[in-house]
């Protein structure tokens, strides 16, 4: 018998389920094989343990008390992992635990912003921007307007101008491409007239761009630049339809 055959029937050998002949064969092998003997001893020990009746120590005397003790121990050692009632997350979850001074500052801020917005609203309601724009054309923005711009409540005139110019330039580029495609079909007179007018408008645009670089608050130049760019766009659009 080899070790494989012996280990295969070792459990039955320990249980005494083998016939005499095979039992003798296993005994003979165990007598000469140390490895199988050790395995046999271990297996016999395990089976013996399994067959022993349950002792009193195996059952806790008061299971409920034991679980309470375990719970208490866990709670005392791991407070951070205790599941707590879920709170709303985000700005509201952390913003309302204010000190008295913080609350005061918040109230004052709200009052100030509300006042500013009210004043802006009243000014816009009673004085539509178009009505006296020409009269204010060359005046710099008031302190009030500067303040609003600084706090980011309104767009500065420069920002607004840059945005408008960008939009107009995009439209001009579009129409210019169309004109470039079509102008080969125009006669000489048409091309010459178009070029002269475009040159004139470009001169105006350059003039006002330079003035505005020196004085960004010159609203009259801003208005004229806006008008010249619109004219350029219209000229390109109309000639692109030829």
């Amino acid at each position, binding site marked *: 018998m080899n070790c494989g055959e012996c280990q295969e029937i070792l459990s039955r050998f320990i249980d005494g389920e083998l016939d005499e002949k095979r039992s003798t064969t296993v005994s003979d092998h165990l007598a000469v094989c140390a490895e199988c003997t050790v395995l046999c001893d271990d297996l016999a020990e395990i089976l013996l343990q399994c067959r022993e009746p349950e002792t009193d120590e195996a059952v806790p005397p008061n299971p409920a008390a034991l679980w309470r003790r375990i719970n208490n121990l866990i709670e005392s050692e791991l407070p951070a992992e205790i599941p707590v009632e879920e709170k709303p997350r985000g700005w509201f979850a952390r913003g309302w635990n204010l000190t008295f001074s913080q609350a005061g500052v918040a109230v004052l801020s709200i009052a100030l912003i509300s006042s500013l917005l009210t004043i802006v609203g009243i000014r816009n309601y009673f004085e539509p921007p178009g009505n006296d724009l020409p*009269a204010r054309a060359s005046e710099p923005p008031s302190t009030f307007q500067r303040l609003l711009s600084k706090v980011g409540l309104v767009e500065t005139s420069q920002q607004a101008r840059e945005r408008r110019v960008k939009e107009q330039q995009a439209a001009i580029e579009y129409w210019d491409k169309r004109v470039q495609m079509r102008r080969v079909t*125009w006669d000489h*007179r048409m091309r010459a*007239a178009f070029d*002269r*007018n475009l040159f*004139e*408008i470009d001169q105006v645009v350059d003039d006002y761009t330079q003035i505005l670089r020196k004085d960004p608050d010159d609203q009259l130049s801003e208005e004229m630049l806006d008008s010249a760019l619109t004219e350029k766009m219209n000229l390109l659009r109309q000639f692109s*339809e030829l």
Partner: protein
Amino acid sequence: MSHSAKIGYGLKRPKKTTILLLLSVVFFFALTANDVVGQRRFSRNFPAGKNVRLQLLNRSGTVTVEGWNRPEVSISASLEAPAATISPQVIEGAILINLMKDNQGREVGNVNFNVRVPYACVVDIETLIGNLIVTNVRGGSVRAHISSEGDVTLTNISANTVQAQNGIGDLFFDGDILPGGNYRFASMRGTINIRIPFNSSFKLVATAPSTRYISLGPFANSNLSYVGDGRRVVGKFGDGSSTLTVTNQRGGISFFTR
């Protein structure tokens, strides 16, 4: 021999005359035909209701519109070669002529229009290049727009709304400023002359940023003031019941009385 020579001689003389005559005829017809190809004419009349409106969009050439005391619109045009297509349409009392649309993608010559309209006609004329002239019109609105070069001349106009605009060229308005009206004149480069009655009343915004030449003439008063380093005049004349806006980017503005 001599007979045949005689016959031959007899045949030769009418041949030369015929050739000369033929050449003359061909030359004459060539000249006439050239004239016909180079200059064509268009003419059409339309009956006009009370609220007639003329909308004309030309490509190049002069457009002249004149009011008359007849309930009809007469349109005549001379067309230079290559002749443009003109297809007038009448939609809800409005007479529409759009040479841009009718001739898109084609090379066409100048078209010079001469249009007669009832006095009360609403006039809206536009061209890419060329002069626009409107005379004796008293309708609700007059609009004359030149995309690039040309002069706008509006004479004896009495309309509630007047708009005139050009690129390079002069602009002249001679007419009434009606109470509650809106009058807008704009040029890129040229001279703007406004001739209006002294009893007009208007809110004025006149801007000549490049030349700073704004001559108010007899209309100068304490209610009109120069702002923006003299680039603009704003204020009221009379009770300021109408609005007058004049902008000349690279030219001057002058006011005169009628």
